[in-house]
């Protein structure tokens, strides 16, 4: 379970300025931390839109973090392709993997988990899949590393 307050505090201390999201039911628990924390929260209407806004912030010298569920990630492919591979901007995404834990134990027919990793690979996005033992600090560490290297990166949170 990722603590929203720890995550927001850690990302802000690492230099992040904005948090753009379309929440899912797991990341939605971070709402209060985001609403009251030091990052500027931008609620997007669609996941591709959140990536476009993040692209503008990055162009303008700021440091956004984008969060979405894998369903929205599937929709956002063209925006993601453009910002990462045409504009070469270091987009950082926190991605909720719907039904992933149930899928690994054979308890779901949801097709989302089947496609997430192949699509991440198809878009040539470096990523890591965390497990339930990981903490907010692990996400922050990945953020720091990605920003230092000025590379796009995706942290996947199994749900």
């Amino acid at each position, binding site marked *: 379970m990722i603590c929203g307050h720890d995550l927001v505090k850690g990302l802000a201390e690492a230099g992040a300025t904005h948090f753009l999201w379309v929440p899912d039911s797991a990341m939605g628990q971070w709402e209060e931390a985001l609403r009251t924390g030091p990052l500027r929260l931008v*609620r997007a209407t669609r996941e591709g839109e959140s990536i*476009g806004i993040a692209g503008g912030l990055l*162009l303008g010298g700021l440091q956004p973090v984008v969060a979405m569920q894998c369903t929205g990630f599937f929709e956002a492919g063209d925006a993601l392709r453009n910002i990462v591979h045409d504009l070469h901007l270091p987009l950082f995404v926190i991605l909720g993997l719907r039904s992933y834990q149930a899928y690994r134990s054979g308890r779901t027919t949801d097709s989302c988990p089947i496609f997430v990793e192949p699509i991440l690979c198809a878009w040539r996005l470096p990523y890591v899949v965390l497990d339930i033992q990981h903490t907010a600090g692990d996400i922050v560490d990945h953020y720091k590393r990605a920003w230092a290297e000025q590379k796009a990166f995706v942290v996947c949170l199994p749900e």
Partner: protein
Amino acid sequence: MDHKAALEVIALHRGERIVISTMGSVGVWSEVSQSPLDFAYLPSSMGQGPALAMGLALAHPQRGVIALVGDGSLLMNLGVLVTIAEQKPRMYLVLIDNGAYEITGGQPVPGAGVVDYTMIAKGAGIARTYRFDTLEKWMAGSQEALHGLGPVFIWLKVDYRPGQGTPRAPFPMDEQIRRLRVALGISQ
């Protein structure tokens, strides 16, 4: 009104604001302005121009951003109007409405000639909206529309230009980003 004449009016008023051009406006804008504060969003993700402009406007609220967006592009992500209204960036979203997908051969966009874009923008929560159908009215109203607090939504009805090819950005993307960042004082 003529597309180029409409953009020449914007060039007179843009001051030190960033101007983001998309799709069919890329080539036209580069004929009327060569500022390092111009950003031709090509190669693009069609429909993401307003979102990109909004991000830049949030990053540089004192300077502000003018975004030139086609009707086909805006229709791909109408939801961004709601996000713009909520975040209130200093942004002037100029809709260049020719009623058609100009680059692909002039097929009409959905709802061409029927959709009321200022009503949609106002309904999304953008308080300042304008519509200009003729160059004369645009010239007369541009001073008010292009100044003051954002966000502002400006709907310009322009003539469809048959035979337009795929637009080309004046510089490669990496060079555009470098020029813009230097002009913004972000990098050397």
